[in-house]
Structures are given as structure tokens and as C-alpha cells.
């Protein structure tokens, strides 16, 4: 019976673990996308500097 309880606990923990892993993959994908988008935004900002358009986002560094 004890083994039963332990086995159940283990499978619950595994389920939680795999939920977490799935979410972690989503997060990583989103972070990569964010990184790409930021660098594009910064390039745009550089390119459109002369038009007087304000750089998109306060944290973009148009000088780098």
C-alpha cells in the first residue's frame, strides 16, 4: 500500500514536471522571438532616423 502511495506521488510529480517543461519551451521560443523583434526595431530606428521618427521604445539604443 505504501508503494502505491509513493507511486502515485511520483507520477503526480512527473506530470507537474512535464507541464513545466512544456511551458519552459514556450517561454524560450517567445524570448527568442522577442530578441529578434527588438533587433529589427533597432535597425528600423537607425534606418528611419533621418525622417525624424522617434525611435520605437525608450530602451532602444540607436547609437550602438
Amino acid at each position, binding site marked *: 500500500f505504501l508503494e502505491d502511495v509513493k507511486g502515485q506521488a511520483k507520477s503526480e510529480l512527473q506530470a507537474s514536471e512535464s507541464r513545466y517543461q512544456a511551458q519552459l519551451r514556450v517561454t524560450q521560443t517567445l*524570448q527568442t522571438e*522577442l530578441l529578434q523583434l527588438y533587433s529589427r526595431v533597432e535597425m528600423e530606428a537607425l534606418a528611419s532616423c533621418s525622417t525624424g521618427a522617434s525611435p520605437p521604445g*525608450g530602451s532602444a539604443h540607436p547609437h550602438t
Partner: protein
Amino acid sequence: MADDPQRNFRSAYYEKVGFRGVEEKKSLEILLKDNPLDVEKLSTFSQRFPLPSMYRIHVWKILLGILPPHSDSHALVGGYRREQYENILEALEAMRFISSSTPTTEVYLRMFQLESQVLPRRSEIPPMEEEDADFLSISQAMEEIVVNAMDCYWLIKCFFNQFNTKFGDSLPHLPKSLEHYLSQEEPRLLNHLKSTGALAQLPYGPWFNRCFAGTLPESSLQRVWDKVISGSCKILVFVGLEILLNYKIILMGTSRPEAVVKFLSNIPQENTDAIVTKAIDLWHKYCGTPMHSV
């Protein structure tokens, strides 16, 4: 033990020279060997005695539920805590919410906000709320006490959450409680503070909402936090009371409430250890010493 004269002599000697904690340290070590840990006994110990500094962080983590009672789960759970910490940090960096130049206390605040789902939009960060300022102040003090950044974040977060959940409803009553005990200990000072209008303006926010973070230096503060973390917010009343009693002469000689507030918001940092010791004694006197077996 009682009929061991040498041991008694040694204890008395330690007591005289300030090593009173030796016996206490031993009993704490016995408690910490339990598996599972008896969290209630650890709370009682912490209510009665100051935690030896080498065990303080570990005991706080157990009392705040950062580590579970079963010691053989500590590695697993500690790993979960580390991953949680790192993932949140990484996401905030990816969003450029924080950078390497962001002050750590602000990093902790943003992490806490993300976890509590109240992270503001990066483009429209609102002015600091009072609760955020409390969080930052507690963070700043915790940072002085805890070296490891991950431990520090978890302790701040759980301390802040536990304090507000457990004592949020009691906090508004603490000023009245302070008034009551002041009337017992020093009615003349109470009357003076009342008649000058200073009583209503005492720095209750920094004292009670921030648990004296920013008021007391960390070496004294951590002994107060031992009591708060192990389950008492009443101790805060007695620390406030002892501050008033300690500076009675100065306070009696001041009639302008602004001057009183200014002085109390920036008390001298020299004899705060004595103030805390007296506050704990007074707290035990009025509220009793927890007598569970230790």
C-alpha cells in the same frame, strides 16, 4: 544536567561573557537534525531565543516554507526554487525590463511583480506605490543580511507575502496597541506626545509596514525579524515602544511634532542592539514566553 557543577559553572561563565547562546545553539542543532523537521518547535525556539547567525538563513527558509520539513527533499525543492528564480530573471532581461545596471532591489521588485501578475507595462511604468516602497525597503535590508541573491529574493518574497497575509489585518491596530503599552510604561511621555499632536504622526509606516527596515541597522533588525518570521507581529509594538522610552528625554523636550517625526525617522544607530534586547524582554513580560519544550 542540573547536578553537573562544571557544566553549570561553564554556562554561568558564558552567560557573563556573552556566550549565553552556547546551550541554545546546541538545542537548535538537535532540532535541525530532526527529519522531518518540527516546524512548530523551530518557531517556538525562534520566539524564545535569538537565532545563531550561522543558522539564521536556514531556519528562516524553513519557517517561511522555502524549504520543506523533510530534509531529504531539500535538494530537489532547492533545485525547483533555483530554476524558478532563474527563469523569471531571464524573462525580465529578455523583455529589457531589467539590465545589468538595474539596482538589485528593483530587480527583486520586478520579479515579485511578475510573479504576482502586477508587472506594469514597460512603456508606462507608474509612479511607485507605497507598497512598492515597503517592498524595496525590506529588500534593501534583506540584501544586507543575505549574501546569495537567489536566497535573498526568495526570503524577501516569502517574508513580504507571509507578513501581509498573516498580519495584514492586525497592522492597523498596532498604533493603538503601542499607545496602550506606553500608558503602562510611561504615561507622562504618552501625555506629552498626545498633547503635542506627535502621537498621531509617529513613523508607523516604516515601523510596522516595513518591520523597521530602514530604521534599525541590520545587525539589530535581524533579531526582530526572527520574531516576526516565527509568528509575532506584536514584537514590532515593543520595539517602537522601546525606541520611545530610550529617547524619552529628547522627546519630552520637543514640542513640535515635525521635530519628533524627523528625529524618530532617523534614530542614532549606536545602541539599537540594547533597544531590541529590552524590547524582546518587554514583549516576553507582557505577552509571555512560549514554553513549548525545546
